């Protein structure tokens, strides 16, 4: 059986594959966002002055990094509804389950990245903020956060690419993301090469787009007077960089 370019092209441009890719992107972006916010909270708790809080946060990171992501996903989808009856209702969709599992998993990794990002901000920055009379929440928002973000962009980009591929695990709970729709189509026509190739192209395209976005974000965080063209940047980056 030859590689049928017609089949490859039809799959690649099919609405089924596009919908699968959209679900993959949506799931990855949502889990990365939630995981980052949760990770920030965990990272801050790890710096708490209360030992039990610190230990709790460390245990959280330990747990979610130690257990395989696939097991976490299966746990959320199969075991949680057994323990919490209300999760058996139809509103608890595969998407929600995958989002929950991947967010929790991601937050443990983001907590570590953010913790090292926070530690990289020079102590003198906080002293300078204090002597100007800024409150501690202002120091965090105006001074620590933007400097921390600059440091964590590259490792977070890595995390996001990993997460994008981890979404394919959700095929085991029959979420119709990119790999699921590929497998389902293969099960119908057995055109492995053509369909896997189409899925590959989609993953490559998605990752490439995000790599370009990351490069732009990094450029924005160069803090150089030649890179001050704010107009091309996403709003969230502008806000994070000090709201100018």
């Amino acid at each position, binding site marked *: 059986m030859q590689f049928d370019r017609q089949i490859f092209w039809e799959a690649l441009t099919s609405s089924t594959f596009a919908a699968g890719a959209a679900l993959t992107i949506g799931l990855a972006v949502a889990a990365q966002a939630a995981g980052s916010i949760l990770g920030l909270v965990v990272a801050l708790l790890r710096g708490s002055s209360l030992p039990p809080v610190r230990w709790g946060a460390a245990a959280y990171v330990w747990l979610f990094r130690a257990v395989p992501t696939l097991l976490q996903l299966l746990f959320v989808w199969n075991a949680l509804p057994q323990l919490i009856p209300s999760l058996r209702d139809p509103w608890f969709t595969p998407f929600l389950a995958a989002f929950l599992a991947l967010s929790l998993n991601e937050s443990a990794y983001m907590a570590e990245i953010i913790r090292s990002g926070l530690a990289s901000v020079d102590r003198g*920055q906080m*002293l300078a903020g*204090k002597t100007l*009379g800024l409150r501690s929440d202002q120091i965090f928002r105006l001074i620590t956060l933007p*400097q921390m973000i*600059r440091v964590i962009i590259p490792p977070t980009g890595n995390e996001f690419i990993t997460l994008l591929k981890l979404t394919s695990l959700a095929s085991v709970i029959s979420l119709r993301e990119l790999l699921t729709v590929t497998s389902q189509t293969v099960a119908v026509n057995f055109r492995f090469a053509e369909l896997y190739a189409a899925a590959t192209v989609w993953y490559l395209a998605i990752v490439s787009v995000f790599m370009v976005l990351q490069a732009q974000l990094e450029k924005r*965080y160069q*803090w150089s*007077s030649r890179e*001050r063209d704010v107009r091309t940047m996403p709003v969230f980056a502008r806000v994070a960089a000090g709201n100018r």
Partner: protein
Amino acid sequence: MSGSQPMIAASEITKHYGRLEVLKGVSLGVERGQVKVVVGPSGSGKSTLLRCLALLEPIESGSIVLDGEDVAWQARGGRGERSLVPFRSQLCMVFQHFNLFPHLTALENVMIGPVHVRGVDRKEARDEAMALLARVRLGDKAERYPHELSGGQQQRVAIARALALRPKVMLFDEPTSALDPELVREVIDVMEELARDGMTMIVVSHEMRFAHEAADAIVMMDEGRIIEEAPPDRFFRDPTHERTRRFLQLAEL
């Protein structure tokens, strides 16, 4: 108005780091518009004293009175950190390593105090900041980021950033000791100008020219105590304390 009412008066301040007693009852007063220069060997507690005066660290006992108001941050009892935050901007500190915010331009560094602490609107803050940058002769560098400036320029931005809060007292901790020798002058010039304009200043520095030209008194610290205080000519010509004499010889001041 009586000239003897001090702008800032610290009395009998003590401070420990763990079991190390760093300040052993330090008293220091500076009158409105006066400049005092603090000298002393490494480890004598000069930086610690400034950080305590700047309300960046709690003290264990003693008092700090700013313009008639007790503002000390006491390790136990007394004012908590939160309630003294508003006083910090009146006692602004300039650091040895500048500590400019690297993600903000020179202009934004200077604007941060007026906008976020004094609550001035952005346009007005911008005009104010531009005027201050011009005053430290950096009007043409407003859009530059800190890493694009020389050390001397960064320190002058830091001075403008502190001035933007309209502090009652400015505290300088070795402001020129991280600078290449040829850049020291431009920073000292700005500080001398501030002194002439009537700013109340406490300056830890071993810059002789500044001490001679601008200081009303030189204060000698040793092992957590102030052991001598005198006007510059007497301090350098005829110090009373043996330790001061030895220090001046060793430091070749």
